[in-house]
């Protein structure tokens, strides 16, 4: 926490100084204050874990022991039995004052290690000083033994053997994309409709599975024929799901027992004793049965998320808590008044803290790409009900209020704005932004529902259930809509498209022929020749990524598989297929477009200065780029300052942006995911703009190798949007946010002093109205002044709690690298 408490400073004074973290500390309950301060920060500081954070070796050891023991079992059954062993034997703990339990490690300061995911990640453990539990030598020996067992046998190792060798080398070069196409590292959607809307506890699901097994067994007793052969596999899959569900119920009841032991034998405070007994009752009831109280509802959800994270390394947290927990909140807080609103707010705050606590070990490239956090936990709030009516409720307000009290950087919120949102809700949204949280991001609900129907054919009612699958991408929470793994999707380093178009497909950074040979750019005589080369490189890059992840998806039930996730997914429970199978999935894939805007700005600069005005030749340009602009500073400045830049309502460059997007959209409809659906582009960055700064070569927009790329999505280059916020919105409004791609991230910085008070709120509300009228699907704000950010750079100890929006996520400012900090400060502060 920050260095000096502000006991003697008035709230009003703190508000004037915009030191919102002190206000939070003054306003939150003693319980929330304790829980917030007791939690271990798992996000990497820049790229390094904080002192004291250790990798958990107990769970990988338990898992590996059983995995070896059941080596003759089919994949799903083997994983289920191994996981059940973990759940039965892993040490558990209850944090003092906590009312919710469950963690994916055996101690609060540990990071989960997905030992069976990828050898290249396992080997990274050796490169991280300080993360080994003491005694270090003994831990290193355990790690070496585990790595020796898994080397060549992890999910990624298995997949690498079946990939096209050339694709594999290019994919693994790290130059054109990132991620591992396996559900071992997933963004798994949860079938909330099945669990919460239809009110299925795990015992109910066990009954459904038993009925399915009974029917299947009847089938196998009938006349022999090839059609019954798959049924045998499905029966084994159902058995695996049952093992997981029973193990999960038993795991929850271990918490119940621990809570009861603490209450009956150790706790002296009668109030806490009562809480522990309530916690015990809660864990006896859920997840076995559907929740019957608000606390049970939150606990059920948290158990599901933790269990899924024990099964796979999950990089995101698709959830819609104000919608799915509303029935129990309404019952307990509004109708029956079993708990007060303040008590409910405590539970909501703790629910967020328990999520913030979650952390898994990630390789350096992932930590650099997601500085300050361990995954993009973007929870969805607001939106509409299945009938189109406003879904915002008092729990929506409670989440927005609790966020300001606990001030965690993860989870964050994405708010589904629509025209019927009440002013009371908009004010709470604005307060979170004004308090410098950087969230909620604002999403255009009607437009994104239309987009979901356009690209993936989700029926209207299902499209209306959408949640953020990761930072940005909408996905329904329904039987056929839910998406079981992140690497149903691909992530492209798009700046390479223009780089390869200029260098005949050759990558001067990794020194390899990557893309197709599209011709020597020095000989290009027209812009259309360059654009044709760009289109070819774009198609090649996307195709390489997509066919790699398509294969990964197809092979995933064999190479990894998710028995627990299957057990909580209606389509898997019904079919007996592993939920990661593309069968039964409608298909909701997208290509995440990192470093996208550099294409438009670079192409526009070449068109204007080389082909239109002929101030420079292609020879001049290629010489400058090959020298990383060294010795060409005046020319570099011309390419930055004399060429139009995206975000200034300039049709010259905006037209090129739209043309590029339409080329991708056309291609997106031609390529297919394993479920047969399209692959639209979704430009956004997380902090990949920093990660790729040393991988993307010099570009015609004036960027050198080493410089941060733009901050992503369709956000203008930092400091290059010189014509004000309306011009930014107008540029972005030229894109068809339904037909040109899946979603488009827009970062904006607003002045906190301008947006103070009622006048500030009205200004912001008018801005949002313009944003909506222009048909944009996303916008998110940083509202922390340059002065505060600079002060935090100089004296980080004093500003530990300053939060900023990096890209699709928020982070504590002091946890991100200096380069990322500088990149955020460079963004233009817009006056509206």
């Amino acid at each position, binding site marked *: 926490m920050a260095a000096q408490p502000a006991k003697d400073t008035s709230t009003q004074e703190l508000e004037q100084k915009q030191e919102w973290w002190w206000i939070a500390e003054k306003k939150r309950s003693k319980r929330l204050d304790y829980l917030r301060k007791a939690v271990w920060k798992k996000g990497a500081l820049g790229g390094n874990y904080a002192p004291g954070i250790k990798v958990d070796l107990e769970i990988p050891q338990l898992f590996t022991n059983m995995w070896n023991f059941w080596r003759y079992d089919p994949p799903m059954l083997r994983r289920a039995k191994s996981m059940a062993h973990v759940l039965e034997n892993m040490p558990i703990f209850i944090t003092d004052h906590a009312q919710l339990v469950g963690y994916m490690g055996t101690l609060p300061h540990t990071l989960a290690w997905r030992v069976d995911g990828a050898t290249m990640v396992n080997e990274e453990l050796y490169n991280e000083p300080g993360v080994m539990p003491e005694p270090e030598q003994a831990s290193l020996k355990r790690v070496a033994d585990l790595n020796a067992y898994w080397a060549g046998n992890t999910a990624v190792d298995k997949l690498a053997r079946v990939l096209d060798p050339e694709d594999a080398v290019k994919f693994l070069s790290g130059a054109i994309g990132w991620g591992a196409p396996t559900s071992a590292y997933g963004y798994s959607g949860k079938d909330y409709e099945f669990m919460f809307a239809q009110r299925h506890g795990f015992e109910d699901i066990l009954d459904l599975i038993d009925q399915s097994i009974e029917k299947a067994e009847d089938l196998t007793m009938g006349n022999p024929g090839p059609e019954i052969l798959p049924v045998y596999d499905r029966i084994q899959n159902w058995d695996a799901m049952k093992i997981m569900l029973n193990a999960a119920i038993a795991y929850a009841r271990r918490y119940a027992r621990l809570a009861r032991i603490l209450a009956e034998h150790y706790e002296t405070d009668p109030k806490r004793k009562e809480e522990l007994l309530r916690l015990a009752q809660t864990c006896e009831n859920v997840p076995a049965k559907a929740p019957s109280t608000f606390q049970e509802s939150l606990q059920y959800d948290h158990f599901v998320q933790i269990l899924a994270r024990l099964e796979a390394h999950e990089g995101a947290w698709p959830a819609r808590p104000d919608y799915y927990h509303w029935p129990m909140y309404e019952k307990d807080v509004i109708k029956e008044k079993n708990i007060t609103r303040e008590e409910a707010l405590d539970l909501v705050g703790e629910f967020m803290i328990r999520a913030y606590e979650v952390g898994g070990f990630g390789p350096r490239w992932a930590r650099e790409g997601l500085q300050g956090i361990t995954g993009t936990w973007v929870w969805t709030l607001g939106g509409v009900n299945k009938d189109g009516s406003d879904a915002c409720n008092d729990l929506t307000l409670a989440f927005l209020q609790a966020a300001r009290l606990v001030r965690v950087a993860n989870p964050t919120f994405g708010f589904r704005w629509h025209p019927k949102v009440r002013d009371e809700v908009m004010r709470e949204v604005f307060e979170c932004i004004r308090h410098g949280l950087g969230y909620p991001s604002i999403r255009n609900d009607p437009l994104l529902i239309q987009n979901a129907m356009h690209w993936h054919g989700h029926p209207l009612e299902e499209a209306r259930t959408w949640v953020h699958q990761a930072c940005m991408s909408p996905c329904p929470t329904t039987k056929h809509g839910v998406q079981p793994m992140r690497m149903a999707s691909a992530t492209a380093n798009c700046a390479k498209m223009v780089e390869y178009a200029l260098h005949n497909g050759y990558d001067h950074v990794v020194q390899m022929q990557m893309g197709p040979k599209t011709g020597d750019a020095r000989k290009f005589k027209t812009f259309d020749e360059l654009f044709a080369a760009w289109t070819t490189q774009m198609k090649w890059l996307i195709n390489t990524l997509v066919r790699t992840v398509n294969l990964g998806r197809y092979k995933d039930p064999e190479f990894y598989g998710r028995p627990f996730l299957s057990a909580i997914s209606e389509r898997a429970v019904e079919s007996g297929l592993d939920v990661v199978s593309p069968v039964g999935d409608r298909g909701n894939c997208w290509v995440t477009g990192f470093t996208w805007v550099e294409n438009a700005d670079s192409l526009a600069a070449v068109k204007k200065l080389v082909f239109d005005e002929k101030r420079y030749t292609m020879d001049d340009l290629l010489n400058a780029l090959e020298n990383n602009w060294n010795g060409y*500073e005046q020319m570099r*400045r011309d390419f*930055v300052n004399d060429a139009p830049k995206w975000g200034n309502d300039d049709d010259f460059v905006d037209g090129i942006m739209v043309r590029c997007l339409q080329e991708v959209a056309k291609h997106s409809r031609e390529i297919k995911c394993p479920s047969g659906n399209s692959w639209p582009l979704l430009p956004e960055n997380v902090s990949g703009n920093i990660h790729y700064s040393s991988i993307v070569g010099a570009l015609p927009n004036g960027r050198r190798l080493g*410089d941060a790329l733009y901050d992503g999505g369709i956000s203008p280059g930092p*400091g290059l949007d010189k014509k004000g916020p309306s011009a930014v919105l107008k540029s972005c409004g030229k894109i068809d946010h339904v037909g040109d791609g899946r979603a488009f991230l827009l970062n904006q910085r607003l002045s906190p002093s301008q947006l103070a008070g009622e006048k500030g709120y009205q200004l912001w509300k008018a801005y949002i109205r313009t944003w909506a009228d222009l048909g944009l699907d996303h916008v998110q704000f940083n509202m922390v002044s340059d002065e505060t950010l600079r002060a935090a*750079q100089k004296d980080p100890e004093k500003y530990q709690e300053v939060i900023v929006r990096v890209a699709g996520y928020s982070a504590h400012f002091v946890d991100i690298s200096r380069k990322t900090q500088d990149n955020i*400060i460079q963004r233009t502060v817009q006056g509206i």
Partner: protein
Amino acid sequence: MKCTECSFEAPVEKFRYLYNARIDASISLRQCPQCQAWLATDELAGEATQKVGPGEAPWGKSAGIEGLAEDAAS
């Protein structure tokens, strides 16, 4: 180029390029190969202007390089 901290002298490209302070200005950050100091560098003149640290400075936008935005706009 001459390091403002240790006076090491070499062609500008021998000073490791780190990143720009702003894409639309000629100020970048380079690192002295001898004393490892981060140096604010005027790329047009090929000169090291000053050491970059977390303290106040007369140009730039981030801490230690305040004022660069104004410089770029002018």
